[in-house]
């Protein structure tokens, strides 16, 4: 770990100007360009690999898609030929791949079989509901999960810790879709004394007017899907945060901090958590990327008009271009989040910066 200590010219630093009041925060040096370039390059390579896989998976494995599209629909040979041409299937595979690459580079993900409209457009339309749902769920579960994880680790072995860990593990083990169905029975239909408070599905009630009414309506629709999603991802945050804080717990610098006379809370907040957050951040970001695809089940069950429902619909047809586009988008989300985590990491951890 003794890295470059001698060759680094000490940063000249006047003895603290009073104006820099918030000097306690991390001062961020510029990220080393090479690091950024390497990470961005890595992400780009991954993305290219995703596209290759998508091509392989959806163009080569499933056979002739036109037959699948037209089965059961009266179609004349001319129409078939027309369709083939429309989907570019009348060309040799290499040419198809060339077309595919060019198309993708232009952000064109092809034409959906079932919607007969551009996949990119479809994805764009369904993107916001997903971001809305996943974003809310992530913020809630991260806020809750990290807090609980920190508490749990800090008082590890206590009853509270055992309960928290147990609950997290149980939630983690429950199939998402099953939980969602239970929620519908319990909280949407209402069972016994529990009134059915929340809508069973959808994102809004058509015809609602007035700002407050619309807002309340939206929130009501959000509660159950969001709760289901939170229940599932919350566990990961709790467990990850707990584990990484436990890793830090024995560290000598915490003893130092305690020896300095810091309160327990301050030791935790100022010293333990910032260090423990480092590994958690990565998990957090990867998770965000995964939750986007994890919302497939929740969206399906709650008829949430996002990418997840779209994916489910595409699966049942199967609408290969749409599946392919969603596959790329879902993977891209994870890659993007990974990249963000990679770029954020050195900001949080000075050791990586050099």
């Amino acid at each position, binding site marked *: 770990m003794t*890295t*470059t200590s*001698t*060759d680094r010219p000490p940063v000249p630093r006047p003895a603290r100007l009073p104006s820099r009041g918030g000097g306690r925060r991390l001062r961020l040096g510029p990220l080393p360009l090479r690091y950024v370039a390497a990470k961005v390059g890595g992400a780009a390579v991954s993305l290219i690999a995703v596209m290759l896989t998508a091509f392989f998976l959806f163009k080569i494995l499933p056979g002739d898609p036109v037959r699948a599209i037209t089965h059961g629909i009266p179609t004349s040979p001319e129409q078939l030929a027309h369709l083939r041409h429309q989907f570019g299937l009348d060309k040799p595979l290499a040419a198809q791949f060339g077309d595919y690459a060019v198309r993708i580079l232009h952000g064109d993900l092809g034409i959906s079989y079932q919607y007969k409209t551009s996949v990119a457009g479809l994805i764009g339309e369904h993107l916001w509901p997903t971001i809305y749902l996943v974003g809310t769920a992530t913020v809630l579960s991260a806020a809750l999960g990290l807090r609980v994880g920190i508490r749990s680790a800090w008082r590890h072995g206590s009853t509270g810790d055992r309960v928290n860990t147990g609950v997290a593990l149980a939630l983690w083990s429950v199939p998402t879709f099953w939980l969602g169905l239970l929620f519908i029975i319990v909280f949407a239909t209402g069972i016994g004394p529990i009134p059915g408070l929340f809508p069973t599905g959808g994102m809004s009630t058509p015809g609602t007017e007035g700002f407050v009414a619309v807002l309340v309506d939206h929130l009501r629709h959000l509660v159950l899907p969001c709760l289901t999603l939170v229940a599932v991802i919350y566990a990961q945050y709790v467990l990850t945060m707990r584990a990484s804080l436990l890793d830090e717990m024995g560290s000598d610098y915490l003893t130092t901090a305690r020896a300095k006379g810091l309160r327990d809370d301050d030791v935790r907040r100022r010293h333990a958590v910032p260090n423990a957050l480092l590994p958690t951040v990565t998990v957090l970001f990867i998770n965000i990327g995964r939750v986007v695809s994890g919302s497939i089940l929740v969206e399906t069950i709650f008829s949430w008009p996002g990418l997840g429902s779209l994916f489910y619909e595409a699966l049942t047809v199967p609408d290969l271009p749409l599946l392919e586009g969603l596959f790329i988008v879902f993977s891209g989300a994870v890659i993007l989040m990974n990249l963000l985590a990679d770029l954020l990491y050195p900001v949080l951890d000075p050791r990586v910066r*050099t």
Partner: protein
Amino acid sequence: MTERVPVLSAHDLRVSFPARHGHGVAHAVDRVNLDVYPGEIVALVGESGCGKTTLARTLLGLEKPGGGQVLHHGQPVRYTSRGLKAYRRDVQLVLQDPSGSLNPRHTVYEAVAEGLRIHGHTALGDFPDEQAKVADALARAGLRPAERFFLRYPHELSGGQRQRVVIAGALVLDPAILVADEPVASLDASVRGEILKLLLGLRDERGLSALVVTHDLGLAWNIADRVAVMYLGRIVETGPVEKILTAPEHPYTRALLSVLPESGLSEAGGAGPTILTGEAPDPTRIPTGCRFHPRCPVVASGRAAALDIEAACRGRDLPVLDGGGEAQVACHAVGSDAGAPDLRTTPTPRPGAGAAPRRRRR
């Protein structure tokens, strides 16, 4: 006496690594000559990072030299897998950290028998079976009765016992040479002596040669016949222990000796220890001339200038010491005016009570 062939020798050995961060190369070992004769214990001393471990590892073939040769009984070591395997039956390694050197999932028996299993039946020698051989090795290493230790796991042993197991694991192959890299550094002071006694005893009983790598000059005084002082990848002074440790000539050796606690204690009223300033040496940027000159008290105090060798110190390379037994030193000051007493910035540690410094051993 030079017709005696060294069992192990480094000839103009060079090892470099790509520097850990950024660019450049770290010349960890930079042209080293060192011979180990049969039945001899050689101590290799120096500051942290000067390349001792790298030298030891290279001698065992764990690192391929970037230049020069490792000679075994005068023959260059072959770096084929078969050549190395044969070589490694004869040269054994003992590491600093006995706990780390033992696989926590292997019993003592397995740890010791591992060498036998790797080298097969031929390694058994006169012994009827593996178990007898293992028991014998353990006994030789001072773990008696050996059978009691067979089934123990490393974590059930004390540090000293673990190091004995490691040594037994080396002895089981009846090696001619033991290379010990800081063999007692991680042991408790009270246990240390026992392990050193063991090494000395093996030398006396079996004529085992040993190269002991250490940063502890006291240890060299305890067991070694000869000492080589290393600085920044190069041996800067070598010779018999009595000579080097009581009448060192190289300013670096002198500084090393001066900071030993008891020397300051015993020399209360003297000038006190010479504490070298400056950063720890960096093998990626070896200074020109004498590689010690940026930290050399002779240069810093102006004496080098007075002696008119400062330019040489800063710019002229020193000859590489050969690996033989005689006392030698690589220093411009020593060369220019042999034994000039005014060079000494510190009082010489007590002129040996009894052991008079000799310039030539033989």
